[in-house]
């Protein structure tokens, strides 16, 4: 039996309290402005988000965080040489946070990241997420869920591939659930869209594993989504914080 399956189900569950369900990262603007009016529009919007933003940013962050810890930690009871990976984690966290140019997306991402770290510390005290938490408390890091997820997955002995895939699933699922709450898209349609995006998530994951981008070469391509996230700040009626 895969020892990490149940922990992973818990981390990827929609009830895992990171606060991700309070954020739409621009999706609410697209719904409100009429860019998304059907299930196929929503599918295209999410596909753009997966290939344009998740693939290049989130998947890479999970990968780097997972591999940094897996490469440097042989024994989780004896953590050594913290300085060798503390600095790259700090830089990764900084760039992941600053790359979110819409203020609300940035704030949302930090909130979700910090909440993930808090939950992770409580559930897995031996995963040494305290080190990341201290970096956040001291102001060296902002807090990022992709980094925390890669970290916990490394501790759980989960492969980088599964770590990326579960993070993508959680993020996309959260957005679909938000679309269901905010728009006339039914739960059944939502589930159809989610499963039809599995292939994209798998392709993104395989691509990241097969051709990891140069370290810290994070890039964003989801320009439309980013502008929508900026415009959310002044949206007339808002269900979500971003």
């Amino acid at each position: 039996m895969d020892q990490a399956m149940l922990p992973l189900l818990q981390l990827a569950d929609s009830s895992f309290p990171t606060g991700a369900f309070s954020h739409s990262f621009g999706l609410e603007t697209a719904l409100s402005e009429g860019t998304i009016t059907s299930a196929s529009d929503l599918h295209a919007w999410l596909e753009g988000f997966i290939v344009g933003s998740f693939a290049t940013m989130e998947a890479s962050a999970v990968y780097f965080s997972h591999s940094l810890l897996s490469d440097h930690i042989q024994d989780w009871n004896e953590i050594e040489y913290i300085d060798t990976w503390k600095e790259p984690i700090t830089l990764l966290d900084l760039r992941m946070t600053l790359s979110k140019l819409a203020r609300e997306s940035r704030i949302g991402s930090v909130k979700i990241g910090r909440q993930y770290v808090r939950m992770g510390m409580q559930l897995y005290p031996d995963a040494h997420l305290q080190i990341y938490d201290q970096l956040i408390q001291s102001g060296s890091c902002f807090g990022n869920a992709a980094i925390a997820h890669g970290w916990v997955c490394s501790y759980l002995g989960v492969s980088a591939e599964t770590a990326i895939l579960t993070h993508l699933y959680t993020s996309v699922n959260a957005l679909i659930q938000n679309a269901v709450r905010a728009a006339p898209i039914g739960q059944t349609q939502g589930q159809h869209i989610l499963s039809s995006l599995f292939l994209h998530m798998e392709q993104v994951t395989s691509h990241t594993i097969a051709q990891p981008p140069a370290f810290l070469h994070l890039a964003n391509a989801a320009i439309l989504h980013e502008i929508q996230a900026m415009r959310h700040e002044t949206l007339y009626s808002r269900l979500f914080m971003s």
Partner: protein
Amino acid sequence: MSSSQKAPLKIAKPFARSDGGLTIYLMDASPGLFGGDLQTIICRIGCNSSLYLTNQSSCKIHPSHTQELSLQMQTFYIENGALFEYIPEPIVPYEGSRYEGATTLYMQTGGSAIIGEILTPGRIGRGEVFLFRKFQSTFSVYWDEQCMVWDTLVIEPMRISNRLIMGTFTHVGTLYVLSEMMNESHVVAIRKVLDSIVGIDVYAGCSALQKNGMIVRMLGNHAWRLQEVMRECHMHIRKIIFGLEAIDIRK
């Protein structure tokens, strides 16, 4: 002012403006950047000085048989009390071209900058739309040596369809404003400017950066239209943040 240059780049004779600032045109005697080319621009804007930097025409990115990248590295040092404005003409990536650009600003406390960038999908007039291989532009800002802005835009049309990430639009424009004097009221003011001039042909948003600044990002279908919107925002910012009148840069 002191300067040095190497062909094909040439720094034209500077113009002194009535508001006390200097305007400089960068001239490029070559047809643009070819694969394997590296163009470097470094500029230091000293204490309390004001510079408007621009170029004569669009930056053409040519392909290379060897698949090499065209590189452009731009580094600016902005000292206390200085204002740096850099609005180059749009970038035009030709079919098969690969471009990587890095613009880095080192801001000293009290320094300010307004930077614009417009990317076209190619030479539209000859049907060259999103036929380039790669466009990657990194923009970063360090305030007193601390990184506070990190924006990497990457477009690879063969890997990701432009429809998915840009909708029906083809051009991208970005205006960065960096100043300690900037606050949320300026973001609100620029949103009003955008609302007043943006129709259905431009989709734009603006937001506060993590520290001392704001970004305006826009999508459109014509370079001239994005330049127009960018200019309106730029001139409004000049007025409300720096108390400066609008300037007309002749080309």
